[in-house]
């Protein structure tokens, strides 16, 4: 084909342009591939302040245990719902500011709950503390601080200065207490590699730490940590005051590249247990209470993680004490709406709040969690199943779940809870018998 000069020139230019475009495209693809693995850390330079956190939405659906003792106590005179729905939005905002050896940090907890017609707002600081750290061997802190003592995953008998952990969500951030504390640490060569000492002063008053125990006391606690022969060991102590005095010890050690074992033991000098007889007579049982926990984590070659723990709660209720409570509560609820029976129900409610309604109120429990990372090459999916068994009455909870972390900064988790057990058993008398929980978190 013969083309006029200009047209040929135009065609050549077009071809050149097209070629140049292809080259540029290839170049840009090449650059992108070359640049695929570039990294300049300057964008991560440290700033004097930082802000982060997450926003969470949670949906819970409860199928209630209408035959359970705690159902009767909770819904007496409030209709007889067979299920409940709860939606909750939470904002955890964290920030810190540093200036030389001093720093201030805060973690807020803002929550809005809506549950079948009623709503609740929670606004608090989980932590708000100032720190002074002249060097790595000494840190002094003052403020609202969430200390975490103990090696157990689901339970911590030696957690003397913290709020109760939820074994169904042990990794959830918890609210701290107002305190003054410090960390002093020294390292050595030889079998004893590290010693660290943590003293704690925790005052209680009408407006300060009133949830900790009796008010008007300045509680003294301390922890001595050793890394000795590749084993973590803690000795802990809490003076009497707001709570009975107590001592404890824990350990944790890697036995092999895939097996860790841990344990805790605590003795409370004068533990009190408020019980109620089957006839409704309240009693207070005093005495020493020894609690302990033994546990392990094991990782298989196929990335299956097993966490197993045996927990003995020395301050927990015996099987007969628990049964007495259920007998009394059952009788009280059968006779409700009569004047003396209302008094009986009130008495049962007081007993429930004084200990029987705790998540795990009895003495011997077994915890097992099995999780599988990326099963069948489904990357970022983690299915797991968790079970808590009451070894005394063989009642149990079992909760399969699936978590997905494939979207950057997003965590999704779906969990089901099923509770099993007969009449007058721990899990058999709980408020709900089934539950579905959906949780979505966005980190920023």
């Amino acid at each position: 084909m013969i083309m006029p000069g200009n047209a040929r020139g135009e065609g050549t230019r077009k071809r050149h342009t097209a070629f140049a475009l292809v080259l540029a495209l290839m170049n840009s693809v090449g650059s992108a591939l070359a640049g695929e693995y570039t990294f300049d850390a300057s964008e991560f330079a440290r700033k004097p302040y930082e802000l982060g956190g997450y926003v969470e939405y949670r949906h819970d659906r409860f199928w209630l245990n209408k035959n359970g003792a705690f159902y009767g106590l909770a819904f007496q005179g409030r209709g007889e719902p067979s299920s409940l729905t709860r939606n909750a939005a939470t904002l955890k905002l964290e920030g810190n500011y540093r200036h030389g050896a001093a720093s201030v940090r805060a973690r807020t907890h803002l929550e809005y709950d809506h549950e079948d017609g009623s709503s609740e707002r929670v606004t608090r600081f989980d932590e708000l503390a100032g720190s002074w750290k002249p060097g790595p061997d000494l840190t002094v802190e003052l403020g609202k601080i969430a200390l975490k003592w103990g090696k157990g995953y689901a339970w911590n008998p030696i957690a003397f200065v913290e709020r109760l952990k939820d074994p169904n969500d042990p990794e959830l951030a918890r609210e701290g207490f107002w305190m003054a504390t410090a960390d002093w640490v020294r390292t050595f060569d030889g079998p004893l590699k590290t010693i660290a000492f943590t003293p704690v002063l925790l005052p209680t008053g009408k407006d300060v730490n009133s949830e900790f125990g009796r008010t008007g006391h300045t509680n003294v606690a301390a922890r001595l940590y050793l890394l000795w022969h590749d084993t973590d060991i803690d000795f802990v102590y809490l003076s009497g005051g707001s709570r009975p005095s107590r001592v404890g010890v824990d350990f944790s050690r890697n036995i092999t590249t895939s097996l860790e074992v841990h344990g805790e033991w605590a003795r409370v000098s004068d533990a009190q247990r408020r019980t109620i007889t089957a006839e409704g007579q309240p009693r207070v049982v005093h005495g020493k209470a020894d609690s302990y926990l033994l546990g392990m984590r094991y990782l298989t070659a196929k990335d299956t993680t097993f966490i197993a723990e045996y927990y003995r709660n020395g301050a927990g209720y015996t099987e007969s004490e628990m049964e007495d409570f259920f007998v009394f509560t059952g009788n009280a609820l059968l006779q409700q709406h009569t004047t003396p029976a209302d008094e009986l129900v009130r008495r049962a409610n007081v007993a429930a709040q004084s200990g029987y309604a705790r998540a795990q109120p009895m003495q011997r429990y077994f915890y097992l969690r099995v999780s599988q990372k990326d099963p069948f090459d489904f990357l970022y999916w983690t299915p797991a199943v968790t079970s808590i068994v009451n070894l005394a009455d063989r009642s149990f909870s079992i909760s399969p779940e699936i978590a997905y972390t494939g979207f950057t900064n997003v965590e999704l988790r779906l969990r089901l809870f099923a509770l099993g057990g007969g009449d007058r058993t721990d899990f058999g008398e709980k408020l709900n018998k089934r539950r579905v929980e959906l949780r979505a978190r966005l980190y920023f």
Partner: protein
Amino acid sequence: MKTLLAIALFLASGAFAADGTEILRKVDRNLEPESYEMYRKLVNIEPDGSRKEFVLFSAKKGRDKVAALFLSPASDKGRATLRLGDNMWLHIPSVGKPVRITSLQSVTGGVFNNADILRLDYSEEYNVQSVQEEKDAFLLALKAKTGEVAYDQLKMWVDRKTLLPSKIEAYAASGMLIKTLYFSDVKDFGGGIKRPATVETDSPLYKGYKSVMLYSQVKRRDFKDEVFTLTNVSRIDDLRK
């Protein structure tokens, strides 16, 4: 005569093993100073090309103390890991206390495990069993000193000129290949530190998956021993300047 020959052979083999040990020691020092700080980006690449990236600040002192702090993504920010010899811990801010982890787990997912991310000197964990001389490289056969080490055996190809590794194959005690590490992009970080800025890895156990570790701002720096303790694992960010 036979005895003399045997002694000569024994001494020769001893000298050869000593050379291998010396090469391995030099590889360690060429990769990093004994005490340093650095930033790394870890990229996990899936078979479909999608990625997940992590940025870590790391500090190391001596032969067996390493700490690392996650700076990105936001969901992992503040997580910190500590290694003292065979002991490893992970601190998750919401959990609030360090928990023991094992070398075969991976805090980032992907092909790199904790032993790769919190790596000690090779000469700290391995003995040189043999050295083969190839055209451009020494091939070192390494054997773990104890059962606590993540990989039982390594085959390490070391560039003869730079005494830097170009490839490492990691094997289980059964002889199964667990993963291969490829070192590339030798870069001058200043202060006499010239080392590969990119380490890629793949594994027959994770077919189609790949992980990449990119290095930046590798600097010689000394730290107090107390930095590398459980008490301070939540405060590693204080080390960053």
